[in-house]
């Protein structure tokens, strides 16, 4: 198949972090990704969904929408929440920056940047956050 997509919506429960990354990994296995690349996608999805659960909705609850699609050249995952939003997007993406320093390292967004090829973060305070992560599909060798 040249192109495909799927969409998933689930409540911001911590058990759904594993569900989300595993589901994306299975979907990604329709392409010829290496096991290492699949692991990288899993980490990125885990970080993005965790952020929606922890920061987006913090004490409250809401839904997370995840859209996944691929073309012959790109595998794209977007994770969207309708929670608190981020006031300073540049600062949020600095490695080591976190608003919960007592228990977090502030490295989730950094991992996403390291493991995916293109990342864009969109957010509005009080409205929500959407992160779009792209992994390049490499042509089959030989």
């Amino acid at each position, binding site marked *: 198949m040249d192109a495909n997509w799927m969409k998933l919506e689930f409540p911001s429960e911590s058990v759904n972090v594993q569900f989300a990354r595993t589901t994306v990994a299975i979907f990604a296995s329709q392409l010829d990704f290496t096991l290492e690349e699949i692991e990288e996608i899993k980490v990125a999805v885990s970080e993005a969904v965790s952020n929606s659960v922890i920061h987006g909705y913090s004490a409250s609850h809401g839904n997370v929408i995840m859209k996944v699609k691929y073309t012959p050249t790109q595998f794209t995952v977007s994770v969207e929440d309708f929670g608190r939003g981020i006031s300073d997007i540049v600062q949020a993406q600095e490695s080591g920056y976190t608003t919960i320093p007592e*228990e*977090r390292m502030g490295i989730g967004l950094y991992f996403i940047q390291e493991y995916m090829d293109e990342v864009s973060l969109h957010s509005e305070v009080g409205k929500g956050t959407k992160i779009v992560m792209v992994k390049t599909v490499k042509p089959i060798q030989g």
Partner: protein
Amino acid sequence: MYCSEIVGQALVITLEGEFDLHTAPPFKEHIDTQLHGKPEIINLIFIMSKLTFIDSSGLGVILGRYRIIQERGGQLIFAAPSPQVKRILELSGMQKISKFSNSAREALELI
């Protein structure tokens, strides 16, 4: 999943499966309970051969526990991580404050 045993001045924790936002909190409780009231434990050894996945939530718990043993002058050792786990540990900057070993026995020899 995890289990732990005290060997001399070290708490040896064997990790199994996946550590993320959902599974990290009970793991944190477990280690804190072990460390609480036992100031003689100064080293933490994580046996990682059966750890299949970890992300920033799991790493945050490990760093937080490291801060406790750091105050006690102890060391942090990661034994037998898979290549993927080793890579994320390195990316997190944690290799600067820890040592890697190939096995549990080698880890005990390092301290």
